[in-house]
């Protein structure tokens, strides 16, 4: 079971990466307007 000492920190690290990616997206303004993109998606050009 000593593998836990590697796997658990790895899992936490992965979660950290996900949070990091989210923060990057927020800082890039991707969550500033969450309504208009839904309307943009139906325009096919």
């Amino acid at each position, binding site marked *: 079971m000593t593998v836990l000492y590697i796997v658990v920190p790895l*899992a936490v690290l992965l979660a950290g990466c996900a*949070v990091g990616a989210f923060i990057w997206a927020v*800082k890039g*303004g991707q*969550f*500033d307007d969450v309504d208009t993109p839904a309307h*943009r998606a139906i325009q096919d050009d």
Partner: protein
Amino acid sequence: MIADAVTNQAAWSDAAPNAAAIAPCSHCGQPVPPGLAREDQANQFCCHGCETAFGIITSCGLDRYYALRDAAQEPAATTGRTYADFDDPVFRGLYVRPMPGGLWMCDLFLRGVHCSACVWLVERLPTLMPGVVEARLDLRRAIVRVVWKEPDAVLSRIARLLDSIGYPPHPARDAKARTLRREEDRKMLMRLAVAGACAGNAMLFAFALYAGAFSVMEPQYRTFFRWGSMAVTLVCLLWPGSVFFRSAIGALRARAVHLDVPIALALLAGLVWSVLSTIRGAGEIYFDSLSVLVFALLVGRFIQHRQQRWAGDAVELLFSITPTVARVVSEKGVRECPSEALRDGDLVEVRAGDSFPADGQIAWGDSYADESVLTGESRPVAIAVGSQVHAGTVNTGSLVQARVTAAGEHTRIAKLMRMVEQGAAGRARIVRLADRASGWFVIGMLVLSAGTLAAWLYLDPNEAVNHAVALLIVTCPCALGLATPLALTVALGRAAREGLLIKSSDAVQRLSKPGVILLDKTGTLTVGKMHVAAWAGDESAKPLVAALEQQSTHPIAVAIARDLKGIFENSVREVEQTTGGGIRGIVDGQQIIAGSPAFVESRVPASEHLAQSANEFARQGLTPIMIAVDGVCSAVAGLGDVLRPDAGEMVARLRAKGWTPRILSGDHPDVVSAIARQLGIADAKGGQRPEDKLEAVRQLAAAGTGVVMVGDGVNDAAALAAADVGIAVHGGAEASLAAADVHIAKPGLSRVVDLIIGCERSMGIVKRNLVASLFYNVSAAVMAATGYINPIAAAVIMPVSSLTVLALSFKSRSFGGRP
């Protein structure tokens, strides 16, 4: 689309019986008025605006717009302004920002955007006009960010194009405030993400530990998991959770107690105890509960914040609509310039339908001014050379020129705005229900913990501290913290969908208790426009008068032409108008005179019977218009503002709910008392100046009655701000929007009644939530004090209590729907 056009026509058929044969407008889908129908054309238009917009859209190959958009439309609101002021250095300094690469950027607020097709069309700006690099529309805020390259494109041309396709642009004010708020939104989202990830991971560690507690776990792994969960929880509490500590410290410094104090206390106690246990390697840990607590509370706060932000944004943007442009007349001709740049002595031109940009004196032309924004008086005032006019009032007649006597800060409207600020400052702040409870809550928590500690020190000293800490954690008012904001947020969201924008949740609480409701006459009780309210005499004169009155722009003439449905083919000749008197002309070969009784009776022999009717109308607060056909007085019409059809029923419903309706209006006392008689309202005051209204509200507030003020004009603004709740109704002026707590997007009293019912129900939900969360807290406290609680029980109770509150908030009906 076709079905909609048919229903539109059905609705229209009252006004024009033969409309069914006419095709709908090619741009907006509304029926085309008979006079404008062109039989030989494939495309029909209801107005010039629609025709322009259609021409531009199709000539640029953007026909797809018509396939994308919702069927129901408003006619294109094209104004035909030149927007020359958008290129003025003053304007540029205020609203336009440079971008790298010689590009310029400006945020414009667009009126009339509402659906996907609008997004599509507006974002095709670069196709429509060379030089525009990018156009991004934020549909919810109706703000488009335009980036362009000069000199290929200039802002005034972009603005003209937007205007001509039916979206009149206005500079979006307060760019700085919006940037700040966006930063705050982003920070909240980031905190939420970190807290969520930490809470999830802390739970995973906790699961491993609970599983280990029931089976057998080797001590080294147990220690490893405990340290792991401590690590993620520390991140959670020190980064996202720090807001609670900061806010609690702030509250204690201000010697106040709000809900963050007990929350911070529980978090701190749990954290210190759990960290000590981890370091010692023995004792209970509550890391999972703590991080989930932080996450849940942040979620509650985030949705509440978003909702309030949205309502605030929507109202704020309405400010942008007020005209900021003046047309200055000089030797070189007329140029547009921002009203901020006006000086005393400037000569400004004001077109019919525009509002005056500054206080001034009429130098040329005569017309009528709608001063309801300042005085509340719905009857337009005649203005001629030498008359005083005020900024913000609307020129309803024809083109005039005015010499500026006071601009900007010194206008009467600016002085009223300062009164608004004073009114708002004098209002007592409401103590929130949950905050009022939290003071007692802290004391209760501390007393209970101390009691538990003392009791267990006597019974079993080893377990004493453990039980006391458990009690502090399980009584953390998580559900209590969510109870009020969640219920109110859901209510505010539903209200917004119903067209009721509530700026502060305090207003909901205040509106749930009956008090005195002060109603403004125009816009709330009445339709706010001149109508033919009464008619006496010969019916056959109606179409003739209507045809004649079509030749005039006088507000009374417009009302008669609209309400009496003239026969449009009538030939009208030799029209002659007398300002302040009436109009005469030949319609279908018959000599028609219409005007004030004095005007008509000076030209034809008076009729005893009709003169009596005219006096009767005047007593009712109506303006009598005498009509003579071929030298004989044949009829008299009474013109005035008419009651909304539902006003009587709504006043009765307000009374049934325990409210006392009163009228407080700037209108002429006769008119007000006539309206009050019809509604059975005993306490009605007319001729009220803004100062009088403010005084009336202050007196009522001082007497301790809850005062709700409903109004729309600048003249109401100070009173709106001073009242416990100010409600600005549809079409209100900037000042009243700024001062009011609630903005109602549709006119009429029925919306006010909906608002009150919704608020009552919302407060019911809040109270139910508080009871539910207190129930959880009390039972958890009992379990903890008796020693029956452990970290697993705590981890279960907390989310269950929050979920109960969540479910109660979303399932209950507040605004909208029938009871």
